């Protein structure tokens, strides 16, 4: 039973179907990544869930509440979902703090509190002095606003007002995945929530900045904090890391995933980056042409892809033609132990046929093993090229038939170009019947 249930979702632009009968379950507190190439409909799926575009058919429920269904099309602002777009999309006319507080209700009290996080721990008020420049803070001060301790905030990062946009990059600060107990009492002021979230994403010293003064990574953190502020039932992340440079990307996504988990957020992430999907998500849904091809844990999707296309999309493959021989396949690498991958609904060898059919044999480059060549082996291969990557390398071998396969080899075991080796496998190959 999923916290979020999408059933038979269909979206069409005119005659073109963009989403075709998509169903998906998202367990509570988990992060599900929708992975697919561009144009597969994954962003459409996200926008449909968000209510940003009308659906043709299907239902979406969140926590048992129907948000999209026959005759029901709840407005986006009434769905209680958080949205983190690809380009951060910070409101350029608001400060970082105002951005974070944008979705928080403006009660009379909170509007006044909004400027002043409180004067409690001496130095903090000073850090936020710029926050009060509209002069509203002096009119009303919270008598007793509970200011949460600032985690990873000014305490750990020295406030440096003169520093440029580079300050506070992920290299300098870290996200503190400390769990936060929701405090929904009226006393809990808007300002305090802003401060809390700013410190949560490690930007408490930047609340007064204009978005234009932030780096890409910082902007994306603010975007995340802004979406988290109203405590959404479901977080929707639309390729949030795609616009960042690769180094920043991997650092930030780890932090974000940790943070989302720590907050017990249910999240739906859309990405075309398989590494991102596999490393972050609890479950991955692989999409293509408006359909979900496979849904499972990252390991499932990587180790047991439902078809060669999924296999190729989520990672490097070695593909060979072969013949199924009851639990083994005959192919250019010889006779290998293999699993029958015929029926997606029932992956395993159980329903495998006995003998004979031609199959597509699939391996991951790291499943290949290298051994000293036997004297008369017909399957000996010659090392022809090495793509060196430091920790390991992709090594190309030419098989006797002229076929080239690539294996991922740990650095210490690297052969040299021209070396002859015998190739073996670590685990069962995957055998897909030819369509």
């Amino acid at each position, binding site marked *: 039973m999923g916290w979020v249930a999408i059933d038979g979702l269909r979206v069409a632009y005119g005659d073109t179907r963009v989403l075709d009968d998509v169903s998906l379950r998202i367990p509570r507190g988990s992060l599900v990544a929708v992975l697919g190439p561009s144009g597969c409909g994954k962003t459409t799926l996200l926008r449909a869930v968000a209510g940003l575009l009308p659906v043709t058919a299907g239902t979406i429920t969140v926590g048992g509440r129907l948000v999209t269904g026959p005759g029901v099309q709840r407005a986006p602002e009434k769905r209680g979902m958080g949205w983190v*777009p690809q380009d951060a999309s910070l409101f350029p006319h608001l400060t970082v703090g105002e951005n974070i507080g944008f979705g928080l209700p403006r009660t009379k009290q909170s509007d006044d509190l909004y400027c002043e996080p409180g004067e409690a721990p001496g130095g903090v008020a000073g850090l936020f002095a710029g926050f009060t420049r509209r002069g509203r803070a002096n009119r009303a001060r919270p008598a007793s606003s509970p200011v949460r301790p600032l985690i990873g905030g000014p305490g750990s990062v020295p406030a440096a007002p003169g520093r440029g946009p580079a300050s506070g990059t992920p290299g300098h600060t870290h996200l503190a995945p400390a769990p936060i107990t929701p405090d929904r009492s009226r006393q809990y002021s808007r300002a305090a929530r802003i401060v809390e979230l700013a410190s949560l994403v490690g930007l408490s010293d930047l609340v007064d900045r204009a978005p234009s003064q932030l780096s890409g990574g910082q902007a994306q953190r603010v975007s995340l904090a802004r979406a988290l502020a109203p405590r959404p039932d479901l977080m929707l992340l639309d390729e949030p890391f795609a616009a960042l440079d690769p180094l920043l990307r991997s650092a930030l996504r780890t932090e974000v995933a940790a943070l989302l988990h720590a907050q017990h957020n249910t999240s739906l992430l859309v990405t075309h980056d398989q590494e991102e999907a596999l490393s972050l998500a609890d479950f991955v849904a692989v999409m293509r042409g408006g359909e979900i091809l496979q849904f499972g844990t990252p390991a499932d999707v990587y180790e047991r892809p439902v078809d060669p296309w999924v296999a190729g999309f989520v990672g490097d493959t070695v593909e060979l033609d072969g013949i199924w021989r009851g639990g083994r396949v005959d192919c250019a690498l010889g006779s290998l132990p293999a699993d029958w991958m015929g029926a997606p609904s029932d992956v395993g060898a159980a329903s495998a046929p006995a003998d004979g059919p031609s199959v597509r044999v699939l391996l991951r480059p790291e499943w290949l093993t290298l051994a000293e060549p036997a004297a008369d082996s017909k399957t000996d291969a010659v090392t022809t090229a090495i793509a060196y990557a430091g920790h390991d390398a992709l090594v190309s071998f030419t098989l006797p038939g002229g076929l080239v396969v690539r294996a991922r080899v740990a650095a210490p075991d690297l052969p040299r170009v021209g070396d002859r080796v015998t190739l073996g496998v670590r685990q069962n190959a995957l055998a897909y019947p030819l369509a």
Partner: protein
Amino acid sequence: MTELLIPPPETAVPRPPARYHFGAPPWLLALAALCAATAAIPLVYLVVRTTEAGLTDVLDTLVRPRVLQLTVNTVLLAAAVTLSCLVLGTICAWILTRIRLPFQRTLLLASALPLAVPSYLAAYGWLVWFPHLNGFWASWFVMTMVCTPYVTLPVAAALRGASADLESVARTLGRGPLRAFAAATWPQIRPAAIAGALLVCLYSLSDFGLVSMLRFQTLTWGINAAYGASFDRNQAALLALVLVVLALVVVAGERRSRRQVGGIPGRSTMPARAPGKTGPLFAAVLLAAPIAGVVVPVVGLLSRLLEAETLRAIDVPRLVEAIGATLGLALAAAVVAVFVALPIAALAARYQGRLVAVIEAVGFLGHALPGIVVGLSLVFFALAAVPMFYQTSVVLVFAYVVLFMPRAIGSMRSGIAAVPASLGDVSRMLGLSPFQTWWRVTARLALPGIAIGALLVAISAMKELPATLLLRPTGVSTLATELWSRTALFEFGAAAPYAAALVLVAMVPAMLLSGIRGTAREN
């Protein structure tokens, strides 16, 4: 000032890459359609009125030699002015971008200046010096000088953005400089040149003050004469319709001939070369329009203004009253135009589709409607439909809105389109309703564009003459009508204070405008 007086050519409006794929909300479509429909009222009423006259009467009037003569005069003048502006403007733009002359920025500013002078003011200034000026060649000359910047500015901008690599390649392939320019660069600046030429053509088709002062009988003159000289208004209505048809033909022709040229990557700047001995010649060509269109009239104006007799005779309360009326009407027109143009601009900025295109095109109708036509048809319309508003500021402001709404739509559309649609999504997802989102995010960020639209309308309304003459409330005079009534009686001295006040008052929004553009650019 260089870019502020020229409505951006439609070709130059960048369509945002990320638009909604789905249809616009019905309420927005309905609202925009309603607003666009108001722009069509004058035209529709004019057609209705003309058909009421009966087909035989219409044909009878149409075949009169008078109608033919006026039409031929109008077409000749518009064609001649358009052609000369196109040639002179393109040459000026080429000099501005390719020749390294001293005081480059000042020269650019100077070549934009004629736009600040209403055509009838320029004509007035020339008549001060040469009272005998009249007829086709005088009208052609003064109009060309006033209108050249409409071509110079967009073409100069296009030239600056055009890839010079192509031209270099063409040179290396053996073409001479002129042929290389024609083969490589002209296709790139063609849309800008044609858009500018369209503005010139519509301007000279619909101009009333200049041809009237220089006594060249075009359709606008004929409409005004027929309206003023006869109890039978059908002739005026019919001539107005002929003028509208001409204008629409021009707009349609421009749309057909406009071919979008994909951006060609490459070094955008051709190294400007030193002028050498030809420098003075280039400077002379460049300064022809500013001198003939601005310096001559303004000096004439000042010479009349500073005559002791004129200074003594200035009726200050009356002048102040005219300034007040001008400002009040212009500001009212600006505010109303913004509200009417807003739904259309919002729709056009965010959605596409045939219906959206139609609504936007109808909103742009005022672009092709001469002021005198709108004035005339609103006299009819107000009397027939809303007599209580007849001869009140309401109808006059409405006329300004119809006439100048396209300018507001243009700048507001690009202002709104520049606000990423994703900001609206984020705001909705954070719990704000569409209207809250519009108010707190989109409108807030598009404010510079909206303000520019309002100011463009205000400037245009201040200078408007023919519709104001027909529709102004009894007892209300604007600077333009005061100037007009005095020059019509050849009282150049008495007209001078009003002309000077008009120039000064029109500079206020112009300066505000450059201020906003400056601020917007800084951000």
